């Protein structure tokens, strides 16, 4: 057998990047997405940045429930156990082979470092083994691009990202051009939800339970709304403490506060702050498009208030369906699609970065 003349991975990538310049736009681009930043292992295959061919999400909620929150080491162990099964399932669901994949998009931050490293190692391994381009994706960008799976993003736009780890207002002029207008100075909105839920002795994760209880109660308890006229930054720790103190004091005095009313009051305070700051950004930046992303975007209270306000103001509002609000790899594949087209590819040194910022 003669010596195998082969292209190294780097040369293969150079060749493919060169070819990308002459790509026929009608040719379909198929991205394999990998997401392991927290306690969800997810693999998805998305065509042309919007068409979901498969989106497998394996949630660890049941595992972490007994600890009352996500335990990083436990999460990382679970990711390793399931990742290859999910890769196989995602390909089977889409009826595709690795050879059909144009690029691999993987979340490399922000998130739990041990968890991120599993996804990144898997992505690099496939990229090298099969000579497939690799694209590192920011998890928050992924949440924003979940909207592109519903309706093509139209610029300029404002994105409100609200989840267990993040509360951010982002202005976008074009694909992957992020200007972070404001963020939380302490707790993320979802984090406040989880902590208040614990005070109200609701199961983990608490967000959906508060949302449900809030519908049954009345917002009769006075709670603070922080930084209301202070730019675009958020703060939820004062609100969270106010709930804890109010419940504690009532208990000591032997007074009864209905959980439903506390849930409704808390939810209204959160929604007031989120909605007013978001609308302020929409008006000051004079945009017509507002998108909402992240786990808390599943919140019915937030959804209905935004819908109502946006209708009044003639703003085009997009909120993904529930299953695309929480962590999933389809959103990573969608965000990765646009980086892929721009030729913004990663090399094999790609590393997980726990505190990766959205805009450098």
């Amino acid at each position: 057998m003669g010596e195998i003349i082969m292209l190294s991975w780097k040369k293969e990538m150079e060749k493919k990047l060169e070819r990308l310049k002459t790509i026929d736009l009608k040719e379909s681009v198929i991205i394999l997405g990998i997401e392991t930043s927290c306690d969800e292992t997810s693999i998805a295959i998305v065509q042309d940045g919007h068409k979901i061919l498969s989106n497998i999400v394996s949630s660890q909620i049941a595992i972490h429930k007994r600890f009352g929150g996500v335990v990083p080491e436990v999460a990382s162990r679970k990711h390793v156990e399931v990742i290859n099964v999910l890769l196989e399932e995602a390909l089977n669901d889409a009826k595709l082979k690795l050879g059909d994949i144009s690029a691999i998009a993987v979340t490399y931050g922000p998130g739990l470092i041990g968890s991120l490293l599993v996804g990144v190692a898997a992505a690099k391994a496939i990229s090298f083994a099969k000579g497939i381009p690799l694209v590192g994706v920011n998890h928050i960008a992924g949440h924003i691009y979940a909207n592109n799976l519903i309706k093509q993003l139209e610029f300029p736009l404002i994105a409100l990202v609200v989840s267990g780890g993040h509360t951010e207002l982002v202005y976008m002029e074009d694909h992957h051009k992020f200007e972070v207008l404001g963020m939380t100075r302490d707790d993320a909105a979802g984090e406040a939800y989880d902590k208040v839920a614990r005070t109200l002795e609701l199961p983990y994760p608490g967000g959906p339970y508060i949302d449900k209880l809030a519908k049954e109660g009345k917002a009769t308890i006075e709670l603070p709304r922080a930084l209301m006229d202070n730019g675009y930054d958020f703060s939820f720790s004062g609100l969270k403490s106010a709930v804890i103190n109010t419940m504690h004091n009532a208990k000591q005095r032997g007074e009864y506060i209905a959980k439903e009313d506390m849930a409704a009051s808390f939810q209204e305070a959160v929604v007031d702050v989120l909605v007013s700051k978001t609308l302020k950004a929409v008006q000051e930046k004079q945009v017509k498009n507002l998108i909402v992303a992240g786990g808390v975007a599943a919140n019915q209270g937030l959804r209905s208030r935004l819908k109502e306000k946006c209708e009044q103001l003639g703003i085009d509002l997009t909120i993904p369906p529930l299953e695309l609000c929480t962590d999933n790899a389809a959103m990573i594949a969608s965000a990765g699609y646009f980086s892929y087209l721009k030729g913004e590819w990663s090399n094999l040194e790609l590393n997980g970065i726990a505190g990766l910022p959205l805009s450098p």
Partner: protein
Amino acid sequence: MNILAIDTSTDVMGVSLLDENRVLAEVTTNLKKNHSIRLMPTIEQLFEEVKWEPKAIDLIAVAKGPGSYTGVRIGITTAKTMAWALKIPLIGVSTLEAMAYPHQNFTGLISPIIDARRGRVYTGLYKKVENKWTNVESDQITPLSKWLNLLQQTQEAVLFVGDDVELHHENIYQELGDMVSFSSSAFNIPRPSVIGLIAKERYLNGKRDDIYDFSPSYLQLAEAEAKWLEKQKINKG
């Protein structure tokens, strides 16, 4: 038969390429440096030097731990995902066994050591018994004092292997005295080519690991998990 062997289970990062008869390439560093950044570029570089395409390999061997939780996950995820993508078999090898294996001419027991903090070590016992390489005591995490007691009772000569032995040198010597010998630094670290060789032997004996199920040998539960179990026991009374 071409083999890629990978080890990131401790501070040591090792990558080796082996063919039917020879070790063609081997890189070993013993540094506290980021395995996540360095592993894939090192693999890529070795393939380029040997002029292999990824699809030229028939088997992937990987160190399965014990060791650093994060480290061993990087190696194992890389190995099993490559094996999955290339549709080739995967064999995991104990990091401790890889440390002991080159010392098989030693006539007594071989105890490879990786420190596990708080007075505990990861170890096991290996020995060539009637020409057969044998795992006498399986890999475990144990208080060193308990381990030394057990060794004393065997009345056999023991060879300690591993950089971490130095941390416990005095303790070991005090307990076991003339029964012990120590390996030298050049033979203390697991070599990826040795991991490749052990895997090849198992492969030829028909052994394969299940890629989908394959997970590191942590040898202990995550701390939160252990505490939770402890609490359940107490609650049950």
